[in-house]
Each structure stands twice: as C-alpha cells, then as structure tokens.
C-alpha cells in the first residue's frame, strides 16, 4: 500500500521508512509541510504518517487542508509535544490515530496495521492463531472445527474484532449489544462473555477480564 511519511527529522524519517518498507509498503517522504501538502494533492495514499512539528506549516495545518479537500486517507499523527491537549486538537481536525514520540516500533506497527485494516476491503476471513472468522458468512472455526455462535455471541465477537487491543468496558459492550436484547444487565454481559470464551478460547485467543472494568481481546497479530 502507498504510505506518505511526513517527518522533518531525517534520522527519524529514514527509520520510519525502513520500518514500513519491511512490511512491504510503498513509501514517499516529505520533510516540510508544504512539500507534504503538494504530494497529498498529487497522489492518493492509503495512510499518512504526519509529524506535527514541521519547519514551515505545521502538521495540523497540513491535516486541515487535507481534510478540507475531503480526502479520506487514514492519518496517523506523531507529536513530540505533550500528548492529551494535542491529541484532542488532532482528533478534532480529523486525525485517525495518534502516537507520542518516542514510541516503540512494535507500537507503531500495530497502529499502522490497525489503520490499514480499516481502509482495505475487509478481508472476509480473519485468522487469529487457531481461530478463523469469516465475517461475510458469519462463520467461526476453532482449530478448523466449525463452532456455532448465537447472534449475541457473534455481535460480541465482532465488537472485539473491530477494536483489537482495546479494553472494552461493560457499559460500552452493553450499549453496542442493546439492539439484540432489550434488558441487558452488566451481569448478562458476563454470561455472554464467558460463553463466547468457552467456545473460542481453545483456538489460542484470550478474552481477559479487566477487573471492575471490562474485557480485553488478546490476539494481536496472527
């Protein structure tokens, strides 16, 4: 896939380029905001890795102009400034995700993967260790053995798959599943989760309980 890296620090830029190249992507680099703006007008990218601190116009301005043209590529903002306030600003302007420097390569790769997964036509079959999920025909296999899921269990699984690596609170889950069940108490969710667990955990994936809060789907990568 085609990715634009906008980073003025040459050391960091070459590092990012190397990391992304390893995953087999086509990388363009821009060292200034105006250069990035020009490149974004000329070509279509699936992902833009955008540094906020740039020598001419800052990353937020590049992002603003980009979104003004109603371009839909995913944008991962990098910043060296203090996180939260910039994060809000960046997300308001239409950034899709956010990473504070310095970061571990693994973290960066995970974010990139998650963002690219959004744009790519959803692969009909996802594989997590021994678990295979076919989202099109809503079929699940654990170690190549088909497993039957109820409608609610399937909805729950989809919820976890849509937010890999995120801790979901019981309240969030209740809100998402309320369409399937009129009276959904937090206890009911525990029951659903434990049923889903017993059906799929044999495949090597794990739904961790975060005490007092919710659940974490632990099946990063494949």
């Amino acid at each position, binding site marked *: 896939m085609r990715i634009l890296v906008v980073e003025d*620090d040459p*050391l*960091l830029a070459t*590092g*990012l380029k*190397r*990391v992304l190249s390893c995953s087999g992507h086509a990388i363009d680099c821009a060292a200034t905001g105006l250069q990035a703006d020009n490149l974004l007008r000329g070509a279509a990218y699936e992902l833009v890795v955008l540094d906020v*601190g740039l020598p001419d116009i800052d990353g937020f301005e590049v992002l603003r102009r980009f979104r003004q043209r109603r371009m839909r590529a995913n944008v991962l903002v990098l910043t*060296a*400034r*203090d*996180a*939260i*306030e910039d994060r809000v600003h960046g997300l308001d302007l239409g950034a899709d995700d956010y990473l504070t*420097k*310095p*970061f*571990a*390569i*693994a973290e960066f790769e995970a974010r990139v993967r998650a963002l690219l997964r959004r744009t790519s036509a959803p692969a009909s079959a996802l594989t997590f260790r021994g678990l295979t999920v076919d989202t099109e025909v809503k079929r699940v296999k654990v170690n190549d053995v088909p497993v039957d899921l109820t409608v609610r269990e399937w909805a729950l699984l989809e919820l976890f798959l849509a937010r890999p*690596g*995120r*801790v979901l*609170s019981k309240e969030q889950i209740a809100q998402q599943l309320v369409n399937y069940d009129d009276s959904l108490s937090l206890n009911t969710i525990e029951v659903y989760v434990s049923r889903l667990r017993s059906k799929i955990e044999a495949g090597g994936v794990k739904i*961790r309980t*975060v*005490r*007092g*809060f*919710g659940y*974490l789907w*632990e099946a990063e990568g494949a």
Partner: protein
Amino acid sequence: MPEESERAPSIRRRLLAFLVPALLLLVGCAVVLSYVLAERAATTAYDRSLLDPALDMAENVRLGANGPQLDMLAQEQEALLYDHEDTLVFQIRDSAGKLIAGVPDLPLAPPLQAEQRPLFFDAVYKGKPLRVAAIRGASGFTVQVGETLNKRHRLVRETLAAEFLPTVLIALASVALAWTVVAHGIAPLGRLRSQLLARSPHDLRPLDERNAPVEIAPAIEAFNHLLCQLRDSNAVQQRFLANASHQLRTPLAALQMHLELLLRRELPGDVHHEIEAMHIATTRATRLANQLLLLAKAEVSAEQARPKSVVNLRTLADVAVQEWVPRAIAREIDLGFELADASIVGDPVLLAESLNNLIDNALRYTPPGGSATVRCGTRLREAFLTVEDSGSGIPEWAHQRVFERFFRIQGTPGEGAGLGLAIVREVADQHAARIVMESTAGSGTRIVLVFSAVGVEASRSSDA
C-alpha cells in the same frame, strides 16, 4: 538587610513623633497666652474697684487750718477698706509729702502729674507684693490705697484652669484621633496584605487596584508591573519548555527506533546484549526527559497553565485503562478498577499525568502475580482518586520523603529517577488536593488524592 536590627519605620509612629511635640508646644503657647490675658483682665478689673476706696477717701479730705485733714471715722475707714480676701492699706500725704493719715511705710507713688488722674503701680509692703492706686486731690494731697494680690492671683488661676483643661483635652483628643485616623487610613494596606497572603505562589494575576486609595494605587501599579514581567518571563519559560520537549524527544525517538531496528537483525550475542543495554538507557533517558518537562510544566504559574475546567476523574481513569492494562498484563499484575463519577475543577493534562505516575509506580513496585487497583468516586463533597497495590510498600520513615524530587529508597529495584511522586505532589498542590499515604514495608501501598468535588448532586443522580 542592614536595618534589620532597628525598628522598622512606622507611619503611625512617625506621625505621632511629629504631632505630640507640636501639640505640646501649642498647648504651652496657649497657656502662656491665657496667663498674660487673664492677668491683664484681672488687673484691669480689680484696679477699677481699688480706685473706689481711694476716691472715697479723697472726697473726705477737708482743708483745715493746718492743711488737709481726713474727715472720716475709724469704723468708716475700716468698712471702706474691708475685703474678705485681701488686706487693704491706705496713706494720705499733703503736697509737701507729710503724712496726713494711714500707714507711713507705703512706698511713694511716682510723681503724679494731673489732678484726679489715677495711677496704678506695683509695690512691696512688709515683704508682700501690693497693687497700689494713687490719686491727687485738688489741693495737691495724695491718696494711695494698696491691696494684696490674693484675689487677682485667684482670678488668674481660675481663668488658667478653665482654659488649660479643655486645651489639654483637645490635645489628647487630637493624638487619639490621629492614631485612629491613621489606623483607618492604612486599613487598605491590611486588606492588600490579606489579599497577597491568600494568594498561591503560582497566581500572577494583577492585583485589583480599582478600590485602592490614590496613595496606595501607585504602589499597587508598580507591583502589578512586576507581576506582569514575571508572567512574561513565565511565558518565555513555557515556550522554552515546549521547544525543549520537542527538541529532546525527536532525537530520542530516532535513537530508540534505530536501536530497535538493529535489535531485529541477526546479531552476535554480545552485540545484541550491548544494543539492548543502549535501548534500555534510551528508554530511561526518554522517561526522565518526559518527567522533568512535566514537573517544570506543573510548576509554572496556575494562570499560565491552561485554564482549569470541570474534569471527571472517572474519564481520566477510563483513558488510563487503555494505556496501562496491556502493560499490567505484560508484567503479570492484575490491574483492576472501581470507578464512580468524581467531578473536580482541574487541569486534565496534569491530572492524567499524575494518575499515570501513580499507576506506573504501582506496577513498578509490585511483583508479578500481585494486584493493583485504581479507584475514584465522591464521598462527603470530596472526590478521591486512589491507587492501591500489593507491592513492596514504603517504610514509614520515607512516607514524606518519597514526594521529594530524585528521592529513591536505597536498594529499590527498577529504573525510576524518583520524580513520579514529586510530580503527583506538585499537581496535587496546584489543585489544593490532599495526599494520603497508607503503606508499610512489605504489605503494599495505597495513595489517595482527595479533591474538593463539584456537582456532587449531578454525579450522584447519574449513578442511580
């Protein structure tokens, strides 16, 4: 200061030091003036009445063959000269100076010029001061009547007393008045003082000079000017921090990234080891830089920091869940949450960093298999944020000291620089929050931040 040992100058004392001698001088002048006036008044009044017996005597002097004779009975003379206070004496001499009647040793009047024009003079008779009235009769005889000064002195005394007391009272009243007026006048200074005392050292807003008296306003103005300069230098510092943070983190990010790329290669064992050590050092430097910058940021004036807003501690904890649960899992620590709404007024960035530091500490000092719990909620109009762990604990002697910068308990494992809890305290100070620590070595640590809550009713109703 060199004048430290001397007494500080006081407006009141200085005013009194000027006022009291001036009033004493004025009272003295007033007394002298009243004395002079009273004496003159007494002299004029009693001289006139002293003239009466002299004239009476002169009326009764008859010209006989042997010259002038006093034609008056002894009782008549006595009655004429009677006075209940003073002793009166008389003397009549003829034109040649021969004594006709009365006491012989009354001093002679200076030569009288015109007939019947009375003359008054002071004299001494038998060792006593006298006032003497002298007149000359038609045939050249002289009548002198002398009187002791008792009633004259009494009148002067009475007049003086009548005037002295009010004068002294007015003087005393002036001093008292000056004392209270000064107190009243410097009352704005007292208000200014309490206004300054109530201020947090981070509050650099200008003082309110609208209600200040014109005498103090210039001082307040100058003070505000100073505050303004301080604010400016704070703003410069803030910009420096933002830049420093960017400039430090970017090369650290590049360093970390290239080390990680290197670590992905096939490397000889010892090289891999060295690079891993470099990677750990880089992470440590990064963390230290982050914490130092954060500490500096938390220190800057409250006004320079972003305006405070209503923050729900539960929302902050919700955000922290995403960041810390994966790390806790990696460290095999059971990180749990008991979150209820707890709204306070504060700076969300600093509060979030404070929470991050508490959780970071809890995970760092809890061995694998242990647990940590984050709690927040509202109780009795107070909002609390608690982080509790089952870790190594903090010995009692260090409970205060762990909040000091760069303080680490000797022998503590891990890579911390001892800034985490210093940040927590700085942020707590900025939010007027209380820190409660319960911990003993070996049995875990609980740190509670207690804030004053806002919208208690609102959060309670959303709980229901």
